Each structure stands twice: as structure tokens, then as C-alpha cells.
């Protein structure tokens, strides 16, 4: 009975709606609502999440006119003869559709309900051939092709400021404009001593010497900072520093992982290729092309083939349970690494089904997989570690090339399962960029490779690809500032974060492309901006922080803890041991405490450290063994190497203090520094001064000096019988304290 009453109520409601609609328009002919503008958005937003795709809910597919007219399990849903009895309308008016989610009603607002009613009563006109695509637009629960990151890149106009004092370049205008709206002022410019330490760590990864700091601080010329920046950008150590950032993204390691963890011969050549690319300011489009298709370029060379090592850096299992299944794991690795690194899209989530959040179809995954399908995906001899033969590759490098020009077709896998092949999928690009979506050409006659990667790489770097330049400038910004303009560097999709300054991101991306994709120009722009040069301390900091603790408005510089490699290099710099001589070459095996080797396989126990003279090379050159990453580095948040990592964690936990307090490597540095100082400085206060200069790059204040002298005396009395003599050990203790202090660990 209740049901009948409800039904009567519903019919009344429909009648009311229809009547209301009818009176609102001319009685003779209700003007149909515009399908594109008024109806399609309702269907896309409210219905297609379930009523589309391979297995639409209730077998009702609302994407095309014929499928909508056909109806579903409950029969037709659009009744063109008696439109007000259309099931579609009844379900919607009942509030039954769309169904509630998480207990919350998702019933249509009246205006949309009315619009649907009006559309149905006017004959439900559907433009011929128009197929709705659930990926066209974003809804509450997933992103469509209207995502910010997929919109064509347009160069925004640089905002004008009311107050243009202390503005270096357009970056500042973009940052300053919203600050002006809030009535906020940026922090004052950092002092020169702070600035040189900041910019040198940033660009080279180790601190300036006391002498360099003083020279810069006392340089009377107005372009002192510009000259400093140019000197640092030209330094060969710049590439060492910035290569490390990219190596995280590239999941760089030098062994295969898994049980046997075999070394990947020549992996270091890829690392050196990145260092050189950074140093030579290789245009970013070329940087992409060589890594994805260095072997397919018109004129490949040892260097470009080395770059394809990018595709070989993932883990590799020499004993997979199911070799056929393992092919698809390897494909997933290259698809994931490529789409993450260059496009910040999680394409791999579409291996089993259409992406749940982003406009990535399952076929997109297989299109991309097909691009790599011609490569050494099939299990080969163990010695090749999943790579092509040296003969095929042409060089003694860790590289990638196709095994032939025409691989067998690749099938979409239902639910991603190898034993459930679906239709054949042709190689292609991601359909999320319709303007650039076109079939790939077959390889030209005589080609040894399929040329699929070359075509895919060209798509990646096409200036009309909305992602590539945005993703890269965002990464560069993040490595300078600690956070990207979009704070999810590896995810520009629906679940990623929208940029804090979208126009600045687009402006920088346009600059990159228009400037011929050179990155050093971008670095220069960024580090010369006042935004970069401001102090980490703002006089109104506490007030601003209450509203914007995350510094999303860039009202001050972010103080940052040293990353693992910079910390190790800084310790070696302070002790004077850092060997900056050779850029590149095979990696060295660091000394690892015996207790860290316990519990490892017998093979790992045979870890033989490289000779002492190699131990002082930069941390970049530490052998990256997946089964045994340097405990020093991992304690300070060096990431796992299995997956690409665009942003490291920064943790703050007691094990880090234990490393710096007790690790033999750190003690070796403090003692080495003490020995050097003792040879030059007889007086305790002179020794203290030297210790401050070498570790912190400044002179101690008088109270610090006095405390240090007292510390030396007291410790010397404790170390009466110690090896090396009490004075040395006391001084080592002082140096050790400085190597542990916050001022040393943080960059302002």
C-alpha cells in the first residue's frame, strides 16, 4: 500500500514537473534543451559512472542514442511516445537514481531533474552519431579530459603588481600577485652567507668553503649573486647533484633485485649519461628521446644507446614462477617508469581495467605496452639479464633495443591476466590527448626496429602534449623549493594535487619550450628570482603560518634538512676528504658495518668494500645494490629503488641521531678534521675557530668559542689514555658535535 501511495506521489510529481515545464515554454512546442550544454553534462556526471563501459550496470548503456533507446534489464528507459512515463525519469524523480553513495543521497537537484524532463518531453533529441564518453569530463569521483593538466598549454600574461620593488623576474610577479591580494609581503632577502650556502647545496650538493662564503659576502659588486649562480651552473659538480634527482625518478640501481640480485653491468654508464646531460644542458626533449628511443634515432651513438638504459633499470627476476606472466610484469615496469617519469600519469593502474580516477582506458595501457613489446620482453638467457645481446645493441652498455621490426600482436588482457587474452591492441599514444591521437606508422622498409618507441617519444615531446613540459618544470621547481607548484610530482591526475600557482606553472612550461627546452635557463630564472632568494625567517612568520603553515603562497623560503647524499658529501667536505676529482666512472662499494651484513645471504656477506682511496668519492658514486642499499643513506630517506620516486620522504627519527652520533664513518670524518686542525693550530681557541669554519663555514661567536675551549679541556682530561692522544680526541669530539648540530643539518 505504501508502495502504491509512493507511486501515486511519484506520478503526481512527474505530472507537476511536466506541467511546470510546459507552462514555462510556449504551449505548442516545448523548446528542447540544448543536448551538449544542458543534457550531456547530466548524463556524463550523474549516470555514466555505472551506465557505460563493457559491463554497464543493469545492462543499461547511456552513452549512445541506440543503446539508450534499447534500455536495459528493466526494459526501455526512454519512452518517446509517453515521455513522462519514461523509466529514466521515474527513477530519477524517485531519487532512486543515481543511487546513494556512502549513505549520502545523490538525488539530482531540481534544476537538473527539470531539464531531463524537458528533454524527454520534447522528444529526447540526441545529435546524430554523438557518443558520450565517460572520460570527457570530470565528475565528483573521477577525472576526465577536462583535467587541468590535460588542457593545452597557453602562455599566461605576467601579472602586474602594485608594488614592484625587489622583483627580479616574472616568477616573482606570479608569486607576488596573490600575496598582494592577501596583503602579505614576502620575507626579506636572505643575507649573503645564507644565500651562498643555500644555492650551492641546491646546485652542487655540497657546501661552500669558509673562504668562498667570505669572498661572496664581501664582494662589493651588485652582480655578485648572478656571477655566483653562473659559476655554479657551469661547475661539473652541478650535473652530479642534479643527476641524483633524476636517478630517483628513473628507479636507478645497479643490481637486479630478487634472490640473486645480480649486478647490471655498465649501469653506471647510464648514471654518467645523466650527469653529462645535466652538465651540457641537454634540451629536455632530447633527454626524453634518447632515453626512450636512443637506439632508434636517425644517428644513434654509444651515448644515445646508453640512455636507453632507462628502460633496463627496473628489477629483473631470473627465476620467475611463470615466465609468460613475468613478461607482463616487465612491461608494467617500463610502462610505469615511462608514464610516471615523463607524464606524471599512473598508467599502470589501467592494466586490468579502465583507470578508476583518470581518463586512461585499459586500451591505453596496452597501446603503451605495445610500444615496448618489440623489445627483450620474452625471457632470454640469464646472462643477458633481460636485455638484448651485445651484437644487437652494438655497444657495451646497459641498453635496450627491439629484437626485430615486427613483433607479434599484443592482446589486451582481461583483468590483466595473461591467460585471458582479449582483442589485439595496436601500439599508440594515450588517448587523453585527442589532438595528438593518431595511429602509429609501421617501420620503414629495412628498419631493424619497430620505431614504435621513437614515435611514442616524439609524442611525449610534442609541444602540444600538455603534460611533458608541465611535469618537468614542476619537478625542477620542487627540487629547488622542496615542494612542486603541483605538490604531487608523479601524479597530475584526478588524485594528484592541483597546482598552487597554475599560471606560473604554465608560464614556466611555455618558457621551457620556447627556450628550446633548455633546463639551465630555467634553473637560472628560478634561483635568480626574489622568491628563491628570500629568507626562511619572516618577521610576521607566526602570523602567516597560522593561515599557511605549508607555505603554499611562498611567503618565505623553506628551511630544509640535508638529503642523504648531501649530508655525506658535507661530512666529507668538512673533514677535507671529499674527492671531487673524477666525474663519473664505476661506482664504489662503501664500507658497511659488520652488523648490517648480518642476516643477509652468504653472498652478501662477501661484501668487499672498495679501497680506502675510493671511499671519499661523492655519495652519487656509491654502488646501489638493491639488496643492500647503504644503511647510512637509507636512514636519511634514500628511497626504495623498485619504483620511480619523484619526492623523497623527510623523516626525523632517533635512528638518524644514532647514525650521526655513533657511525664509524662519521667518527672517521671528525677525527680526520681534528688531525688537520691540530697540525695548523696550537691554541684551543684557534682550533675552535677552525672547527667552526670547516664545519659551519663561519667563525664562532665569543660565547661559542669559550664554551668550545672549555669542552676541549674537559674532554682532554677524559681521554688521557685514549689512542691518538687526548688533544686529538678532544678536538675530534668538538668537531663531532658540530657535525651533529641543527645548523649543519639544515639549509636555511
Amino acid at each position, binding site marked *: 500500500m505504501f508502495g502504491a501511495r509512493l507511486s501515486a506521489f511519484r506520478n503526481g510529481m512527474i505530472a507537476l514537473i511536466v506541467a511546470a515545464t510546459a507552462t514555462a515554454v510556449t504551449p505548442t512546442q516545448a523548446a528542447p534543451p540544448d543536448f551538449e550544454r544542458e543534457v550531456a553534462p547530466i548524463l556524463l556526471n550523474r549516470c555514466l559512472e555505472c551506465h557505460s563501459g563493457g559491463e554497464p550496470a543493469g545492462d543499461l548503456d547511456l552513452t549512445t542514442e541506440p543503446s539508450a533507446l534499447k534500455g536495459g534489464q528493466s526494459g526501455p528507459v526512454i519512452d518517446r511516445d509517453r515521455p513522462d512515463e519514461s523509466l529514466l525519469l521515474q527513477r530519477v524523480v524517485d531519487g532512486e537514481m543515481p543511487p546513494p553513495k556512502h549513505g549520502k543521497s545523490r538525488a539530482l537537484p531540481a534544476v537538473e531533474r527539470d531539464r531531463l524532463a524537458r528533454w524527454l518531453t520534447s522528444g529526447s533529441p540526441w545529435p546524430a552519431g554523438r557518443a558520450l564518453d565517460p572520460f570527457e569530463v570530470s565528475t565528483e569521483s573521477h577525472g576526465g579530459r577536462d583535467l587541468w593538466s590535460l588542457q593545452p598549454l597557453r602562455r599566461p600574461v605576467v601579472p602586474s603588481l602594485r608594488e614592484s620593488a625587489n622583483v627580479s623576474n616574472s616568477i616573482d610577479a606570479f608569486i607576488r600577485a596573490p600575496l598582494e591580494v592577501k596583503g602579505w609581503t614576502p620575507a626579506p632577502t636572505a643575507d649573503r652567507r645564507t644565500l651562498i650556502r643555500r644555492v650551492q647545496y641546491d646546485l652542487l650538493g655540497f657546501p661552500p668553503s669558509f673562504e668562498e662564503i667570505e669572498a661572496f659576502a664581501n664582494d662589493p659588486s651588485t652582480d655578485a649573486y648572478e656571477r655566483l649562480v653562473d659559476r655554479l651552473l657551469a661547475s661539473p659538480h652541478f650535473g652530479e647533484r642534479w643527476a641524483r634527482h633524476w636517478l630517483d625518478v628513473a628507479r636507478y640501481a645497479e643490481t637486479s633485485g630478487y634472490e640473486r640480485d645480480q649486478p647490471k653491468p655498465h649501469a653506471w654508464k647510464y648514471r654518467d649519461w645523466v650527469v653529462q646531460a645535466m652538465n651540457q644542458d641537454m634540451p629536455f626533449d632530447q633527454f626524453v628521446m634518447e632515453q626512450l628511443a636512443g637506439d632508434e634515432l636517425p644517428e644513434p651513438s654509444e651515448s644515445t644507446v646508453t640512455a636507453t638504459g632507462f628502460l633496463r633499470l627496473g628489477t629483473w627476476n631470473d627465476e620467475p614462477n611463470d615466465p609468460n606472466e613475468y613478461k607482463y610484469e616487465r612491461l608494467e615496469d617500463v610502462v610505469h617508469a615511462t608514464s610516471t617519469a615523463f607524464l606524471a600519469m599512473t598508467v599502470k593502474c589501467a592494466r*586490468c581495467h579502465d583507470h578508476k580516477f583518470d581518463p586512461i582506458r585499459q586500451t591505453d595501457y596496452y597501446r603503451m605496452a605495445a610500444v615496448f613489446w618489440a623489445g627483450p620482453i620474452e625471457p632470454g638467457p640469464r646472462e643477458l639479464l633481460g636485455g638484448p645481446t651485445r651484437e644487437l645493441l652494438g655497444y657495451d652498455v646497459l641498453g635496450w633495443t627491439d629484437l626485430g621490426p615486427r613483433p607479434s600482436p599484443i592482446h589486451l588482457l582481461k583483468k590483466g591476466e595473461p591467460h585471458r587474452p582479449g582483442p589485439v591492441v595496436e601500439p599508440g599514444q594515450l588517448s587523453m590527448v585527442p589532438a595528438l591521437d593518431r595511429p602509429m606508422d609501421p617501420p620503414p622498409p629495412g628498419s631493424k626496429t619497430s620505431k614504435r618507441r621513437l614515435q611514442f617519444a616524439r609524442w611525449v615531446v610534442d609541444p602540444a602534449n600538455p603534460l611533458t613540459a608541465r611535469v618537468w618544470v614542476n619537478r625542477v621547481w620542487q627540487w629547488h623549493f622542496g615542494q612542486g607548484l603541483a605538490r604531487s610530482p608523479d601524479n597530475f591526475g584526478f588524485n594528484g594535487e592541483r597546482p598552487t600557482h597554475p599560471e606560473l606553472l604554465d608560464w614556466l612550461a611555455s618558457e621551457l619550450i620556447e627556450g628550446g627546452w633548455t633546463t639551465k635557463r630555467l634553473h637560472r630564472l628560478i634561483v635568480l628570482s626574489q622568491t628563491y632568494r628570500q629568507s626562511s625567517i619572516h618577521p610576521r612568520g607566526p602570523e602567516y603560518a597560522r593561515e599557511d603553515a605549508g607555505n603554499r603562497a611562498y611567503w618565505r623560503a623553506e628551511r630544509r634538512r640535508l638529503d642523504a647524499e648531501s649530508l655525506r658529501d658535507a661530512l666529507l667536505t668538512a673533514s677535507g676528504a671529499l674527492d671531487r676529482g673524477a666525474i663519473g666512472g664505476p661506482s664504489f662499494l662503501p664500507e658497511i658495518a659488520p652488523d648490517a651484513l648480518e642476516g643477509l645471504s652468504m653472498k652478501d656477506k662477501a661484501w668487499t668494500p672498495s679501497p680506502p682511496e675510493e671511499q671519499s668519492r661523492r655519495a652519487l658514486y656509491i654502488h646501489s645494490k638493491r639488496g643492500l642499499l647503504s644503511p647510512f643513506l637509507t636512514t636519511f630517506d634514500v628511497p626504495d629503488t623498485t619504483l620511480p620516486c619523484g619526492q623523497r620522504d623527510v623523516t626525523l627519527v*632517533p635512528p638518524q641521531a*644514532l647514525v650521526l652520533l655513533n657511525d664509524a664513518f662519521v667518527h672517521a670524518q671528525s677525527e680526520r678534521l681534528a688531525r688537520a686542525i691540530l697540525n695548523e693550530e696550537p691554541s684551543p681557541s684557534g682550533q675552535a675557530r677552525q672547527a667552526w669554519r670547516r664545519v659551519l663555514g663561519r667563525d664562532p661567536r665569543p660565547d661559542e668559542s669559550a664554551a668550545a675551549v672549555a*669542552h676541549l679541556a674537559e674532554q682532554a682530561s677524559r681521554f688521557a689514555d*685514549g689512542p691518538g692522544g687526548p688533544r686529538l680526541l678532544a678536538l675530534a*669530539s668538538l668537531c663531532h658535535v658540530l657535525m651533529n648540530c641543527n645548523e649543519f643539518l639544515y639549509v636555511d
Partner: protein
Amino acid sequence: MTADDLLNSTRRHFLASQGMSLGSLALAWLLHQDHARGAPPKPSLERPHYDLKPKAPPAPPRASSMIALWMQGGPSHIDLFDPKPELNRRHLQNFEGEIKYDNAGQASAKLFGSPWKFQRHGSCGMELSELLPGLGSVADDVTLIRSMKTGVNNHGQSISALNTGRVTRYRPTLGSWLTYALGSESQNLPAYCVLTDPGGIPVLGVETWSSGWLPSLYQGTVIRPKEPRIANLDPPPRFRGTPQRRQLDFLDQINREHMESHPGETDLSARVSTYELAARMQTSAKEALDIGSESPATLKLYGIDDPVTREYGTRCLIARRLVERGVRFVQVCTGNQDWDHHGAITKRLPAMCRKVDKPGAALVFDLKQRGLLDETVVFWGGEMGRLPVVQNEQSIGRDHNTHGFSVWLAGGGFKGGYVHGATDEFGHKAVHDVVTHTDYLATLLHLFGLDHSTLTFNRPGGAGSLVDGQPARVVRELLS
């Protein structure tokens, strides 16, 4: 006196002197206040101070510590905790209701009864799967909730919901809230310890024990799954004892001066705290992590004599040793997605149970026999359960289900031998006495003497809290 005795006596001295060192820190702070008094008044900006000293909760607590046995991936409740005769009867028939799948395209509507038998256990007669004989042996001490619900079908979001109160990311986890509110009874060990699995960390990574926007001091400290569980616990011999204490005092002095020029920066002060703690951990952590002094009977209890349970059992035993020593919150993880049985469930589920069932039950038994269970909450569960239908016909599995799943709790004020709530006849949705993630969190806070509506942290843009203004109820029926 042997050299070792001497060393030990120095260690003891070192331990004892730590209290003095704290006193000296306090004195330094007071002196600084005196000094500052002469300075011109600064704008009145409260500079909150954060520490891990034990704090009394506003209401009398039932629990003082918690061990979360964190089964990331989503154990199948219908195969472990929630018997469904109707489901078994309609095995392989089509399910006619609506199901929210993780992905509709993959789903099958074919019901899949549990291949495992259920039996009653304890005097309470709790029905549990044959895969959980260990849990059966402690059923009378356990509260089993069969009506958990987060309602978000993804791992990450559901983990966030249970751990942080909301499905959104980067929020503080429960362990961070407890240590923020209550500090730690141990000043010698990290207040919030995480024992990770050798098979990798859970799918959300370090976010699983993040302090979110609470001060960094309250983040979880990972204890490595293999030796050395905490590295670098020994200073070089010549620095042991007084010389290192002098170093630490001097370091503290330098850091404090540095912090004066960087007011209000909680990461700087958190880093200083890590040194205070690290120094004390040098003596206490090794002892806490060393199970060598445990009796053979205890080792056997946790299954440390058996290769299958040895690894997980060792971590459960370490968890007990940690709470015994005053650690507030311990998370014992299984590996990344270890319970995410989309396929091969008949092989993979029993394997996981063999690994964790006995040690988890041993933990409850052992805490009880030591009189610690009354004040220690033990939690066992993951972020979801599984669907009653087949996901993968070639290699049977079950898809995600966060609309109804089970977890169990013991100790700390939870009622023993009690089953709460129910799912529908298929185990699909929680239908009776539903416990949401916010209810669950509010109940836990309540047992610790905390109130979910008043425990807040002043953050920019307003106070933040664990439950964050969402509906939440202390589920008193769960409590003894």
C-alpha cells in the same frame, strides 16, 4: 672486576645520569628565560612546547598502551571471522543484490561459500574459522567486531580512514595522537614504534605511521625487520659514558642557541628530542629488542621455534617487550598487500594465517599471564574485508569489501568473549550495530581517557582532530 663489569657499571652510571642531563636541559631553559626577561618584549606569540613526557588524560583511562597487529591488504572476514551458512548454501549461485565492486568490470556475481569450516571456541562459543586455531584458544579474551565499515573501497583511503579518521591523506595517525596526548611512559624508547615486515612496508608507505600535521616528534620510528633492528646503538668505546654525555650536553647547548634564531620551528626541536632519546636508547633499546632472556616456554608460545611463525612471532614478542617498557603504541605490520587476495585465496589465505595466527594469540595470552592485558589494547585487523562473490574464476579470489568486515580487539577495557554486530546473510554489508572507523577511533580514545571531541591540535586554519567533526560514537557495548 672484569672489563665487562666496568663497562656495565659505566652504562648504569650513564643511564642514571640521564635524569640529570634532562635536569640540566631544564635549567638551561630556565636560565634562558631569565636572560630573556631583560630583553624588550616580543610580540605575544605563544611558542608551544612539545615533548614525550607522560601526561595525564582528562578522564581516568582503562588502557595505557596499544599494539596494532596491522594486516594490510584486507583479510577475508567471511573465511575467518564471520560464518555465513546462507552463503555456503548458495555457493556458486548468482548473487541477486547490488554489489559495489572495486571494479565493476572485473566482477562476477557468483557467490562463493567459504571453503573453511567454522567452530565454536571458548566458554563464549565464539565461531571462528579453522584457519584460526590460535585465536580460538584466547576467544574468551577477545572482542570480535563483525560489523566494521569504512565504506571506501580502496586500500589507501580505507587505511587512512582507520588510521587517521578520514579518507584523505597526510593526516596524523592514531599512534601520533596517542603519543601527542599522553606522551610516553618510557623516556628511553621511541613512544611510537613500528615493526615492519621483511616483505616490505604497507602500501601507503611511511604515511602508515606519519604524524601528519602534528609535530614531527610524534611520528612512528621504524624498527628494522632484520638485525640490527636499530643500527649504531654503540658509540666507539672511548666515547662511552661521560665523554658522550658531555658531547650531548654541548650539542644541546649549540642547538638551543640555533633554535632561538628560528623560533617556533617544531622540526628543529623534534630533531633535538631525537638526540635525547637516541642517547637513552643506546642502553635501553638493545635490551628491549633482545629476546635472548626470554624463557624457552615463551619462545615456543610465540612459535619462535617454528620457521613458519618465527619471524612474525619474534616481532610480536618484541612488541610485548616494548609495551612492558612503557612504549605507548606499537604497530606490527605484515608486508605490502599481503592480505589482498584477489586470486589464489585458497592458497594464500591459509599461508598468511599460519604466519600470524599463533603469534597474535600468544601475545594476548602472554600479556594476560603477565597482568598486562588489562591496560594494553591489542588490535588485529586490516583496512577491509572481502566480497562474498568470486573475483577470478581461474584462480579464485575475492574483491575488496569495506562495507562490512571484521576486526578483533583484546585487553585495555574491551569485553572478553564478545561478538559485536553482524553483516547481512552473505557477509556483504554490515547491517547490525555497525561500527564505523570514526566510532572505532572514538572508542579507542575513550579507553585511553581521551575524548574525541576535545582532543585537538591547533593548526593553521582551525583546530584539527582525529575524528574531525564527523559523527562518532563511543561504542560502550564493546567495553567491559
